[in-house]
């Protein structure tokens, strides 16, 4: 199968800081990729490169056959990006916001209206379509962002911490939605640090730290390699220099009189 996303020896510097240190990835269509790593590992930089937001990197990145550096606009057309929370114009209503983002993808108003109303209704927000979003809770805003990311029916969906602030029921809906979208052949790139959800939804987990890929495989591969433990523990083993139990001990020792 022809991979839909490939990253070939990707390096990225911010000043003298070497943020991505030779990332190589090949992702097939329909896969759900869990992209995990500690803060500052290079997750957001990778996401921004895939979305065509950063072009001054070394190496080659292709998305659906398009070179991200040369054809950023074509890449953007087939990607749905759900940014981290609060990146929205809050004084608009969901209706206005979704019309704006949908129209930038060239969707017709009727299509946007139909899809936006249907999707928001599924999230239990049918009554909020014409309210300004500055009164919304975190979860409600996140739902609008999710809808804006999939409204144009993209081939690839890139999610940056999509579940932050969502209530338990909405988390279940999103998890279900991710699986259904993947079944329809869409590729999901899921960047997060909430391990248990990544563990449950992903076909393949890529763990990066300090700009390098430390582990890449299914959850079973990783478990076999690390001794049948949870993803959280694997993550900790690979990215932390000290054991969490030791660190907790050090914290507790501070209370000793």
């Amino acid at each position, binding site marked *: 199968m022809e991979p839909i996303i490939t990253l070939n020896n990707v390096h990225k510097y911010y000043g003298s800081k070497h943020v991505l240190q030779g990332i190589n990835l090949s992702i097939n269509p329909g896969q759900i990729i869990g992209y995990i790593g500690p803060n500052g590992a290079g997750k957001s930089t990778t996401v*921004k490169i895939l979305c065509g937001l950063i072009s001054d990197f070394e190496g080659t990145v292709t998305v659906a056959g398009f070179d991200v550096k040369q054809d950023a606009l074509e890449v*953007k057309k087939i990607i749905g990006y759900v940014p981290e929370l609060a990146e*929205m114009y809050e004084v608009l209503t969901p209706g206005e916001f979704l019309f704006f983002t949908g129209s930038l993808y060239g969707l017709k108003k009727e299509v946007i209206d139909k899809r936006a109303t249907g999707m928001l209704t599924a999230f239990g927000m049918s009554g909020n379509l014409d309210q300004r979003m500055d009164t919304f809770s975190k979860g409600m805003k996140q739902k609008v962002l999710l809808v804006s990311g999939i409204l144009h029916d993209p081939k690839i969906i890139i999610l940056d911490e999509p579940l932050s602030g969502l209530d338990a029921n909405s988390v279940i809906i999103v998890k279900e939605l991710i699986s259904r979208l993947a079944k329809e052949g869409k590729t999901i790139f899921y960047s997060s640090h909430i391990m248990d959800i990544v563990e449950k939804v992903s076909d393949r987990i890529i763990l990066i730290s300090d700009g390098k890929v430390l582990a890449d495989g299914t959850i079973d591969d990783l478990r076999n390699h690390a001794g049948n433990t949870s993803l959280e523990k694997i993550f900790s083993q690979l990215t932390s220099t000290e054991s969490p139990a030791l660190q907790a001990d050090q914290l507790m020792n501070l209370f000793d009189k």
Partner: protein
Amino acid sequence: MNIINQFLLRLFLSPSLLYKKANVDPDQLKLILTTKLIIDDRRPNTFHRSRQNASTKTISLATLGTMLFSAVLGCMFLFTFTPGSTLPAQLTFYFSIYMFVLTSTLIADFTSVLFDVKDNAIILPKPVSDRTFVASRLLHIIIHCAKIVLPMALPGILFIFFRNGIATGLSLFCVLLMATLFTIFLINAIYLVVLKFTTPQKFNAIISYVQIILSIAVYAGFQFLPRFLIAPSGDMLHSSGWLWFLPSYWFALATFFFSTFKMDFSLVAGALITFIASPFSIWLVIKYFAPAFNQKLSQITAGSEEQPNISSAKKVNTTSSLAEILAQWTTTNVSEKLGFINCWTLSNRLKDFKLKVYPSIGYIMVYMVVMFFKDGQKSLANVIALNQQGIVVVLGVLYAFSLILITAINQMPFTEQYKASWIYFSLPLEKPGYILSGAYKAMIIKFYTPFALVLSAVAIYLCGFTIIPTLLLSFINIFLTGLVNTLFIMKMFPFSMHQNAAQKSGSFVRILFSLVLPGILAVMHFFIFKSIVGIIVALICSMVLNYFLLQRLRNRRWSFINSSYSV
């Protein structure tokens, strides 16, 4: 969208063929601009922010409000045309004020347009070409300028049109256009200089300081320019060579030249400079400033959050800082100390607090200079002699400084980051009033004591040691004013309420009261100025009152403080 935005949008989008030729997508351009203008209409702008009712929820049709306020400002500029001086002198004054106010208005608004980082997450991942995106930002700024510039310039143009005739009115219109271009150049220059010395991340904070300096400069300009520009005869001081350094002087000469066509050397020179310098400055902006600017902007666009430069971040000395030492000396228990240190530290760092309070320091300084120098040596002689006029000046200066303290105390409860104040509510405090008394003491020491020390030194130098009782009484009275403000006006914890709450009903009466009180005390002080017994009695009364009010503040209970938050 309101009718003005619709009109401007239609006007600026009309050359759609031109946009297509420049590889700009007219449909996307229209969509982005329409959305941005709707957002502008709902977001409070500079004027609203400075008037302290920055409600993001309730303000709609902000454009009309901005334009109306701009027009009111434009009407205020008309006082520069009061008779008694020649037209070039009036016009120089008019252009100076116009350019200063325009700069300080646009400088903040440019930031919110150019540095809207939300665009990075919302528009940039969409299939929108760079050219369309840049064009949308440029047009957004141009439409924004038009909405401020047109109403601001119109009153002056109409006034001159009716008073001095069609030719002068038309001439003013054209030269105002040039002055506006030149102002935009100045703003760009300020931006570039600021960006040269700082990172884009710190840019907003620095621009706030520039705004503070500009607002003080506008006030100083109002006070001093007429004195410098106009001779007692009402004529312009042409002889001063330094006038040529004032762009407003060129614009005034140009306006005068095009209305009279008098072949005077300075008039022709002024007109030439105007019509060469302004287009040249805009050419500079497009050719050199814009590319450098875009380069800097892309640093923000390309993931500024990825590079937190921790090693170069300013190290804050947390152990035995100045605040802690002062708190140790002046507070009586842990709660009061906490209130003191927290209020001291946050007032150092919160941008919105500084933006509201620091200009008042500048205003007072300008006022001091005006008060002392308006009659030259005479006021100084009066002060040294301590005659009737001298006493008025001394008391005026001493009590005027209470305005800084009052501004600081009135602003103390408010910030955009008010949510962090949950900490006070979760603390096991028996008497939360101690937090307030600690905050009050921090404000007194920070925003009054340094000035009191300088004033004392100057006063003792000029008038001798006999002035000490007067100084003491004025200081104690100002402490009292601050205390009354904290006790009866500001009943909340420091930095615990959103700025919107500052605009509640009755605030005008409260602010008026807090300004009148030092005035009343100053007048009372004036009547007992010569009586040492009177001063000593007043001093004792004031100290006793201070003591009792401070105790009352410390004894504030939870029920009382909570009631301030439920209104």
